[in-house]
């Protein structure tokens, strides 16, 4: 945040945030909004665990439980984990490759606001007739049957926020392909950039099928189509396929950036080059590719027939190989290094055994006949929380500590950070390890209660107690954040002292135009190379100081997103309220007109002149 912003009035600060197209600010927006949704999803998780702590509990009613369960899964995946990762990508990737900004700053802002309004829309369902209740997978027979507007909120909300994700995906792809600084060849890109790249490619190909599936659901529920109504010739299996064609790549969209974050952490805090860099890159791409060929492993019990099951079982197992390559390369990175256990590193060290445990249960589920037993039992719940919480969430928390100084020029408190880690980590294992056994002992998932004395009582209680430890961890984290912001001690450049990649070379606080002069990249871990060679500045430059071109701020992304938000209400009440269709039309109109305005005007941005760059303040803000 530039110091100028603080002198402005509240109104203009707000305006600045609403119209910003600066990737660093959009990163903060993503992080804050995603963080909010993470706490929301976490509170929903706590309600789930409270309800299941004891048998025959009537703390939550059956219907309400299903709503909370659905919103927990949906919120965590779409509104918390993915956006927070986008936040880090936005904050780090352009700096890491030495770019001025992302390729499409305007679209970057549009992507954020679409996500934002989609998430708000989805959560308004709580106050407007009930939340969706068919699980985050929203299988078609139940989602068509489900009364009330909940499922409509789900379909429309995800459609809007999905559009935002799709835009963000294309944006990162183009940024990484076109905007790398001179010398930053593909095989010199830091792993976080690589994983962002592959995850974005997955978004590019995985979100269209979801879009189509959601359209079918919307048309079926609101506009009289018959895609999933079997009495009219429809077929619910189509939804299952479309959902999982999206859904499986989605989990890799989450885990790959997490892998990237840990790759940075291991090499940074071991003071060592990443072991087997090219194998790591290759494994990343391979995981991305295989990720599209395995979706039916979520459908082993649907009755697809032995041939389909066998093919998908074997292709699923294959993913263990490239993932294993990554694990072993990480181990060999810390092997022979100089390991400093900072908070981010602590998360990294917690990640390895946790994720491996989650990954291998995934391979067990890939054995189709065994999955007939495991599917839709608590074993599955245990598996995916091990990979998601033990992988993605640990990465999110690690990156929060790692990149906080980069984003805010402050250090989070290390001591509190480590306390958070231990609460969260122990709580996590207590909560989910035991769920493997619950599953094997016959407990199905998505049950709002269970009858006592089936051998499940104690394990469920332990699981719930573990969740409380996690919550304590999160609360300490929030305390840490508040404390750090209030104290506001500048962290300075290269706060972890062993920074290896370009983002650590940039002066703090980061100027809004990023690098004054485009850096020249001379190898993998370019900052490290420069430092080792005794370059005080820590950077070589590719060009002399010259004018910098900057994009203009714009309010249009916000307005476009509001338009879709409004239109969604029209679609939702179609056929029920007379004002529905006009509202739909007005909403779409707002979006289209603002698109037209954007297209009609020339927007060439502005330049910061060389002379202004010479004095330290930098150009206009």
């Amino acid at each position, binding site marked *: 945040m530039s110091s100028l912003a603080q002198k402005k009035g509240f109104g203009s600060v707000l305006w600045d945030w609403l119209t910003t197209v600066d990737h660093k600010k959009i990163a903060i927006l993503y992080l804050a909004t995603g963080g909010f949704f993470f706490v929301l999803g976490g509170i929903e998780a706590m309600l789930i665990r409270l309800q299941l702590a004891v048998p025959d509990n009537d703390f939550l009613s059956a219907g309400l439980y299903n709503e909370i369960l659905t919103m927990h899964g949906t919120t965590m995946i779409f509104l918390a984990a993915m956006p927070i990762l986008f936040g880090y990508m936005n904050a780090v990737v352009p700096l890491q490759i030495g770019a001025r900004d992302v390729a499409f700053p305007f679209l970057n802002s549009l992507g954020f606001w679409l996500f934002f309004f989609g998430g708000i829309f989805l959560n308004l369902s709580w106050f407007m007739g009930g939340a969706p209740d068919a699980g985050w997978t929203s299988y078609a027979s139940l989602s068509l049957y489900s009364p009330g507007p909940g499922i409509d909120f789900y379909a429309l909300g995800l459609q809007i926020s999905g559009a935002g994700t799709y835009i963000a995906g*294309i944006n990162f792809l183009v940024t990484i392909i076109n905007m790398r600084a001179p010398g930053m060849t593909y095989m010199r890109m830091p792993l976080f950039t690589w994983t962002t790249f592959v995850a974005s490619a997955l978004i590019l190909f995985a979100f269209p099928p979801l879009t189509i599936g959601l359209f079918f659901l919307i048309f079926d529920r609101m*506009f*009289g189509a018959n895609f999933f109504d079997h009495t009219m010739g429809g077929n619910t299996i189509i939804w299952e396929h479309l959902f999982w064609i999206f859904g499986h790549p989605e989990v890799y969209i989450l885990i790959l950036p997490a892998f990237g974050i840990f790759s940075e952490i291991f090499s940074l805090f071991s003071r060592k080059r990443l072991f087997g860099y090219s194998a790591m890159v290759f494994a990343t791409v391979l995981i991305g590719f295989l990720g599209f060929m395995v979706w039916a492993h979520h459908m082993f019990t649907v009755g697809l027939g032995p041939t389909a099951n066998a093919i998908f079982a074997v292709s699923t197992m294959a993913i263990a190989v490239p993932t294993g390559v990554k694990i072993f390369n990480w181990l060999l990175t810390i092997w022979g290094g100089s390991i400093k256990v900072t908070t981010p590193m602590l998360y990294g060290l917690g990640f390895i055994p946790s994720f491996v445990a989650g990954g291998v249960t995934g391979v067990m589920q890939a054995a189709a006949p065994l999955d007939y037993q495991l599917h839709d039992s608590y074993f599955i719940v245990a598996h995916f929380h091990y990979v998601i919480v033990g992988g993605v969430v640990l990465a999110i928390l690690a990156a929060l500590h790692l990149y906080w100084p980069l984003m805010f020029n402050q250090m989070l408190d290390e001591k509190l950070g480590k306390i958070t880690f231990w609460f969260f980590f122990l709580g996590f294992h207590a909560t989910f390890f035991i769920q493997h056994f619950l599953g094997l002992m016959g407990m199905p998932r998505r049950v709002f209660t269970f009858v006592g004395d089936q051998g499940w009582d104690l394990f469920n209680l332990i699981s719930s107690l573990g969740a409380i430890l996690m919550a304590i961890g999160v609360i300490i984290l929030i305390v840490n954040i508040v404390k750090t912001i209030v104290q506001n001690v500048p962290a300075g450049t290269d706060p972890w002292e062993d920074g290896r990649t370009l983002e650590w070379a940039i002066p703090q606080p980061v100027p809004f135009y990023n690098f004054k002069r485009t850096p020249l990249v001379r190898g993998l871990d370019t900052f490290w190379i420069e430092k080792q060679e005794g370059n005080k500045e820590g950077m070589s430059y590719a060009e002399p100081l010259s004018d910098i071109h900057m994009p203009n701020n714009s309010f249009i992304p916000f307005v476009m997103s509001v338009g879709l938000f409004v239109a969604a209400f029209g679609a939702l009440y179609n056929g029920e309220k007379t004002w529905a269709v006009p509202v739909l039309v007005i909403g779409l109109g707002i979006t289209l007109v603002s698109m037209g305005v954007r297209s009609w005007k020339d927007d060439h941005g502005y330049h910061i002149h060389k002379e202004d760059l010479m004095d330290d303040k930098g150009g206009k803000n």
Partner: protein
Amino acid sequence: MAEEIKYTPQTWPEHPETANLEGRNKFLGFWLFLGGETVLFASLFATFLALKNKGPEGMEFTTQSLFSEGLPLVFLMTMLLLTSSLTSVYAMYHMKNFNFRGVQTWMAVTVILGLGFLLLEIYEFNHYVHLGFHYSHSAFSSSFFTLVGTHGVHVVIGLGWIILLMLRNAKRGLSVYTAQKYYTASLYWHFIDVVWVFIFTVVYLMGVMG
């Protein structure tokens, strides 16, 4: 600023659409978008193939009964769209020659052909609805109208886009900035044609064969 450069045919770059970073970004971004669109349409095709001829018990419509008669119409639509693809190539040809009038003229022809296609499609849909084969009639009808209709929506968007470009640039003329916009729009238009090739093959021709 570069945008104010007054080009002459001699100074006009060979690839105006990718003459600067902004152009290259949009160019690449748009191609990636088309990659995503491929998957989008693949999902629609897959669904249509799974649901074609599926309906409530005793449904009288099949692809054969519906599309056999209309083949000449579909042929005509195909011709219109194919030709419009060529005319948009002409527009790009003139763009590379720095001939703004040529660009506008051929884009206009493209629009007219596209409108012709659209009218025929509306006529066709209307015909089916009159037969009783409306959107809510069956899974078959839903998947048919959604697949072909999504293509139709793309046509509408493409036309709207091109018209808007012609209007907004009427005064501005050609620059690297505007050339890039025309180029992307024409890519989009070709892609619409590509999709149509599959639609007439998979939906109509293979449908008629049963």
